[in-house]
């Protein structure tokens, strides 16, 4: 189940259109992501990047188009099935469980793969205990991986923004996703922390075998780690390709990067 079927891309987005009243947030957007890639998704503010994510996690309906994941059409599944299918995500504006500790947040992340039943929980049946042990082990592993051990028992709401972002990442990884959607993970990080993040994302791909779809405005990061970049503008795809090609694309420069984008890096 964990081995991607050969040939076909892991994720294929086809002619997805999303409208809010008069606003066309996505206009027949199509692209695909190969397994094992890090794919950057960039574009000006309001271009529709987060909307793509919301379609992928079924928070929005993707109109006429379709989304295939690992060869299966997922654009009609209920929202809560996406984690089980192997799509994990973080949120642009943080969506943690504020009253819980870091560890508990990660444990909830394990839910996608091992949903818990009421009867088992009430009576503490052996199956339930085993699941719990496994979840705890997974959480411990990720706490170590993300260097969150020190604040494992702290309530997330009190933590600094950067740490909260890492907790979100850990929570998404707990569900053992095959595709990880990261919405602006570099926001609010300084230069040094950025480099750490780049290394971390690479490690997630290489060590955990997770394909990454990355929305980010920090060009330095995107260009450095992406295998492929998709560019949106006003809900339409305007360019796609390897980073080096995309950064030379005149329309991308005009709409997004500006003449000398060096100063943004």
């Amino acid at each position, binding site marked *: 189940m964990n081995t991607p079927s050969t040939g076909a891309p892991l994720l294929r987005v086809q002619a997805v259109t999303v409208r809010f009243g008069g606003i066309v947030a996505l206009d027949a957007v199509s692209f695909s992501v190969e397994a094992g890639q890090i794919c950057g998704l960039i574009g000006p503010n309001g271009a529709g990047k987060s909307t793509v994510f919301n379609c992928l996690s079924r928070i929005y309906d993707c109109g006429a188009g379709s989304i295939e994941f690992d060869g299966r059409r997922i654009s009609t599944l209920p*929202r809560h099935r996406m*984690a089980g299918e192997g799509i994990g995500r973080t949120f642009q504006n943080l969506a943690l469980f504020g009253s819980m500790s870091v560890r508990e947040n990660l444990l909830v992340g394990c*839910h996608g793969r091992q949903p*818990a039943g009421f009867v088992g929980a009430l009576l503490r049946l052996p199956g*339930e205990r085993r*699941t719990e042990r496994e979840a705890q082990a997974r959480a411990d592993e990720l706490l170590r991986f993300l260097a969150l051990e020190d604040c494992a028992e702290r309530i997330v709401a009190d933590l600094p923004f950067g740490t909260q972002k890492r907790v979100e990442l850990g929570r998404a990884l707990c*569900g053992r996703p095959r595709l990880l959607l990261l919405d602006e993970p570099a926001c609010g990080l300084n230069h040094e922390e950025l480099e750490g993040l780049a290394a971390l994302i690479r490690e997630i791909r290489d060590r955990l075998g997770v394909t990454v779809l990355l929305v980010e405005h920090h060009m330095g990061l995107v260009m450095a780690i992406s295998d492929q970049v998709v560019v949106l503008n006003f809900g339409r795809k305007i360019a796609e390709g390897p980073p080096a090609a995309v950064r030379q694309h005149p329309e991308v420069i005009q709409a997004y990067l500006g003449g000398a984008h060096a100063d943004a890096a």
Partner: protein
Amino acid sequence: MRLVERTAFALLLLLALAFPFLAEGYAVFQATMVLSYAVALLGLNILTGYNGQISLGHGAFYALGAYTAAILMDRFGLPYWATIPAAGAVCLVAGVLFGLPALKLEGLYLALATFALGVAMPQLLKYKHLEPWTGGVQGLVLAKPDAPFGLPLTQDQWLYLFALAVVVILFALARNLLHSGAGRAIVAIRDHPLAAQAMGIDNRRYKAGAFGISAMYTGIGGALSAIAVQFVAPDSFTMFLSISLLVGVVVGGVGTLSGALYGALFIVFVPTAAEKITQSAPWAIYGVVLILFVFVMPGGVARLLLRRQR
């Protein structure tokens, strides 16, 4: 549990066991009522405190549990102990059935829907086509169970001990639930429903489930109270009951297990204490005491005690 907690818990249990032999019948009866409310509050807390679904009408499930027990005893001659699981089962089903459509409602809207349930329940109990079972406005009078096996206990003592056993079991189950994956899912839904779904939590299922379990607990509380009071009538289950339950949850401590007990003590004893202060406007006193309580302990008694411990 840490050692301190364990010993404290053991001591408390011992005290609770000794209580009926130290106090007079009336106090034992009151204590039984406290236990029955505690179960009900625990149920409401699972829903409102842990799952974040406000219910202003949980008295309806308390009533349903009480009536289930009463009807089974009175009309079908079931022994009292068998009515407890039956009441739980009936309320579980009713809770899930109510919880499913209520899934679409949040906050105030859910408050209204549950409020409506609380208002409608006494009227349903009076409904003429149900009278053969419910006894209509007259209600049903029940017999109090004797202690079994010829134990030398009064009815009050025995019923108290029985209720205590039920309470201990139900608290243990609730603890299991809340410390499991399902429990975390329930809390996650409260904190951030959308993120919970993104983590693979089926909100519908857990919310309906939480509603069911909550109703089950509250129904069992109702059944215990019916057996203790030996009487059920529509007038026993007015809106005021639902409101008291909510008050109990908040005073005890939203989202805490032990809060149920403190809340139950509050709703049983403070009104009578207020009456002692003045008979002219006892509820004004009650209201003032209530406000002082939430001023001093906005997180409830249980949270205050927890903090002291740390």
